């Protein structure tokens, strides 16, 4: 064992900043990270054992306790729940005889629940030993467990055909379906791969490339919308021994799966986008941070990188351009939503907990290993390739004046055609619902749990009170004419998650509670506010749902929602949004639950509370004042 650990450590130059990779190798080799291993790692990496455990205990897919031979990670995101998560979960438990969160006594089967795995269009889905199982039903769950008990390999448990496109590639071999429903300029198959690197970039100076991207007004497609050209410009001017381009492929916002599809079908564009960014900013290090849930793509993506290296599209003097040296490695995440935040992602890449950094300094100033670092989303980088190929003027003919180009929407939930829709910016919510074949719609969650819950009914809202006014600057305006609201940076900016709920859904109990649980699970815990408040607010919501709420509770929730806005990162600042947004747009649901519209909480009904005891001893309850 010692030899194996030594070999793993040496593979990563005994470098503590590569702890995530080291722990992955240990997990693969031994199935868990034992106390003995932790001691060995601590000694050689020169960090304390507590520090090693700090990283292990942060990530969902690391464990210091033995895991099973077959580990089932069932996804509990909202669309999974809408499509029978509970029944599937029950079937797994009954057939295996194990409760979720545990490993069977013989060490064969372990059952775990996990946050969104990027399969919202084909849930409920599970990851079993890194293989993805989609469209699960109780029947399929039972078949899987039976197969495991018969000693079948994971590959043999999949009896469905492979999915479409590259999902059927021998290195992928997965049943996942792309579900591309609408293509435009980005999802366009009519192009020659890597032609920009081969034929175009050498015609431009790095400054000219940045200028074209700036003119195209390309903005970050992960959701925040920071101008990409500006980011490249800042990065290119920062002094540093190395400069780093990171592609953020840690899409974790529940309901998004666009990066999954881009990486499956158009990963050449993503890698080429990184090469262009490197050329423009004179960067020499490239990293694609791939969320652990997409590990099934790892080999496939690495084969693409090998192809690029073999064709001088990566490496030294790329395509003959003197001094243009750049390579890309893939960094695997380990299961933490917060690592989608760029500075948390960088911390994770350095082998630490994914805890967001204070800004300033921003990553472009001091990022990965303190080098100037440019972090771009998968979709942003792919779009940049199209822009350099066809020019900024061409790009400007798509979208609206404030939001140029197209956006990939990941549509899921109650609709006939869940999947990926590439739309021009400025499309209205109504158009999206029509495209997806959604009927009887009650609500649409735009931008995932951290976004806005839109009420398509246009109920009269209560935006006149002072409390409501406060929420305006945060971009969470109560929706009027929600149907006509547009997906754009000036109206509803989004990373592209669209989840549809029909009229049969219980918004508070099923949707809002699920989202709050998500934020409670995924908070890094660093800020006092985000560590504690979401839980307290969820308990208050539960009180209201259970019929014990009073009107003041609704105001409390709105007031408390302000406090959380001082948290360090986007997760913290938006962790109360499911509640705030639903109060703003579905206040009537809260008021229906609030007890007889009373203002004060009288805690309990005396007569009701003692009735059981009274009947037991055969006594009558008498009100003295009645």
């Amino acid at each position, binding site marked *: 064992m010692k030899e194996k650990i030594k070999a793993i450590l040496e593979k990563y130059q005994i470098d503590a900043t590569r702890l995530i990779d080291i722990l992955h190798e240990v997990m693969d080799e031994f199935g868990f990270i034992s106390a003995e291993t932790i001691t060995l790692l601590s000694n050689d990496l020169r960090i304390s054992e*507590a520090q090693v455990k700090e990283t292990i*205990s942060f990530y969902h897919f690391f464990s210091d306790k033995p895991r099973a031979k077959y580990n089932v990670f069932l996804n509990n995101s909202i669309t999974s729940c809408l499509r029978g998560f509970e029944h599937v979960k029950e079937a797994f438990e009954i057939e295996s005889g194990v409760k979720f969160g545990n490993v069977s006594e013989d060490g064969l089967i372990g059952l775990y629940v996990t946050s969104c795995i990027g399969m919202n269009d084909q849930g409920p889905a599970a990851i079993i030993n890194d293989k993805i199982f989609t469209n699960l039903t109780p029947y399929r769950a039972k078949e899987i467990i039976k197969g495991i008990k018969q000693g079948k390999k994971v590959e043999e448990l999949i009896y469905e055909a492979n999915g479409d496109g590259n999902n059927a590639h021998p290195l992928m071999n997965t049943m996942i379906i792309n579900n591309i429903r609408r293509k435009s300029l980005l999802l366009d198959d009519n192009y020659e791969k890597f032609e920009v690197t081969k034929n175009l970039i050498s015609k431009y100076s790095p400054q000219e490339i940045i200028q074209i991207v700036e003119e195209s007004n390309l903005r970050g497609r992960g959701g925040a919308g920071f101008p990409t050209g500006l980011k490249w410009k800042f990065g290119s001017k920062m002094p540093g021994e190395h400069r780093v381009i990171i592609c953020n492929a840690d899409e974790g916002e529940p309901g998004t799966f666009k990066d999954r599809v881009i990486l499956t079908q158009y990963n050449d564009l993503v890698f080429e986008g990184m090469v262009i960014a490197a050329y423009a900013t004179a960067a020499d290090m490239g990293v694609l941070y791939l969320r652990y849930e997409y590990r099934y793509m790892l080999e496939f993506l690495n084969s693409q990188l090998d192809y690029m290296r073999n064709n001088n599209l990566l490496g030294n003097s790329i395509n003959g351009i003197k001094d243009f040296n750049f390579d890309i490695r893939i960094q695997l995440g380990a299961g933490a939503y917060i690592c989608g935040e760029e500075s948390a992602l960088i911390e994770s890449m350095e082998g630490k907990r994914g805890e967001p950094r204070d800004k300033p300094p921003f990553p472009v100033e001091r990022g990965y290993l303190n080098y100037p670092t440019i972090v771009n989303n998968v979709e942003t980088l792919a779009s940049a390739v199209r822009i350099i190929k066809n020019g900024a003027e061409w790009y400007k003919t798509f979208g609206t004046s404030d939001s140029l180009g197209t956006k990939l929407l990941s549509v899921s939930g109650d609709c006939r055609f869940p999947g990926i829709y590439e739309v021009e910016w400025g499309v209205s919510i109504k158009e999206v619902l029509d495209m997806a074949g959604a009927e009887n719609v009650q609500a649409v969650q735009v931008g995932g749990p951290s976004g806005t819950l839109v009420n398509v009914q246009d109920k009269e809202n209560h935006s006149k009170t002072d409390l409501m006014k406060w929420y305006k600057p945060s971009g969470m305006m109560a929706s009027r004419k929600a149907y006509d609201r547009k997906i754009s940076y000036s109206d509803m900016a989004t990373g592209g998650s669209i989840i549809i709920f029909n009229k049969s859904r219980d918004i508070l109990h099923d949707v809002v509670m699920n989202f709050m649980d998500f934020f409670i*699970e995924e*908070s890094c815990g660093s800020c*006092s506010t985000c*560590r*504690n408040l979401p839980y307290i607010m969820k*308990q208050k919501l539960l009180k209201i749902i259970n019929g014990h709420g009073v009107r003041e509770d609704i105001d409390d929730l709105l007031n408390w929602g302000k*406090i959380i806005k*001082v948290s360090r990162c986007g997760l913290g600042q938006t962790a109360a949004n499911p509640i705030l947004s639903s109060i703003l747009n579905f206040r009537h649901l809260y008021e229906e639950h609030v007890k007889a519209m009373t203002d004060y909480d009288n805690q309990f009904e005396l007569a009701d509370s003692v009735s059981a005891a009274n009947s037991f001893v055969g006594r009558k309850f008498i009100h003295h004042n009645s």
Partner: protein
Amino acid sequence: MSDTCKFKIDGKEIIAKKGQTILEAAKENGVFIPTLCNFTGVKPKGSCRICSVKINDRFMTSCTTPVAAGMEVESNTEEISDLRKSIIELLFVSGNHFCPSCEKSGNCELQALGYRYQMMVPRFPYSFDKKNVVATGPKLLKDQDRCIKCQRCMKTIKDDEGKRYYAFKNRGRDLEVVMDEEMSKTITDELAKEAMENCPVGSIIYKGVGFSEPIGTRKYDKQPIGSLIETN
């Protein structure tokens, strides 16, 4: 070029050295901004959020934000004071803080801030989570009921190689600050006392001595928190 700059906190002119944080500059100019996680000499992390101020209508933590000439900072407003009070309350309800029986009472920064911001009944319900006291090490015990996860011990208590005695465990609501079991066996007396000293609350306690200084005569019993800064 001069290496100082001027800016304003609540209208008061502050003269600061360039590169200083707002918090440091405020302190030198007699303006008290509360903090629980900041510690002189180590890189700030901005995790307690209590030093939040408003600049251009945006909340920023004053312990991590460098000063800039002409900046106008809001700190002692009704809104921000209530925000700070709410964070103090949040820390109280999410732990189990029983001041009368705590060795740090009177030397505790959380308690002192509770007084300063006149916390009465917290607006949030108490969670009364069951937490542990870990007392396996020879010199120190770690009372998780009182820990506010400020990271001061994690940042300041290290061995010669830079290995940390304290580290986080888990995440979110389950987050804990734990001591390295092996290292706790060999910690020096001096460092153990420093660990207790640096802890703003009573979560790290040096074993063997208790209440050697009577309650009522301790640091914040004599001087309310912040008063020394404000009289300077």
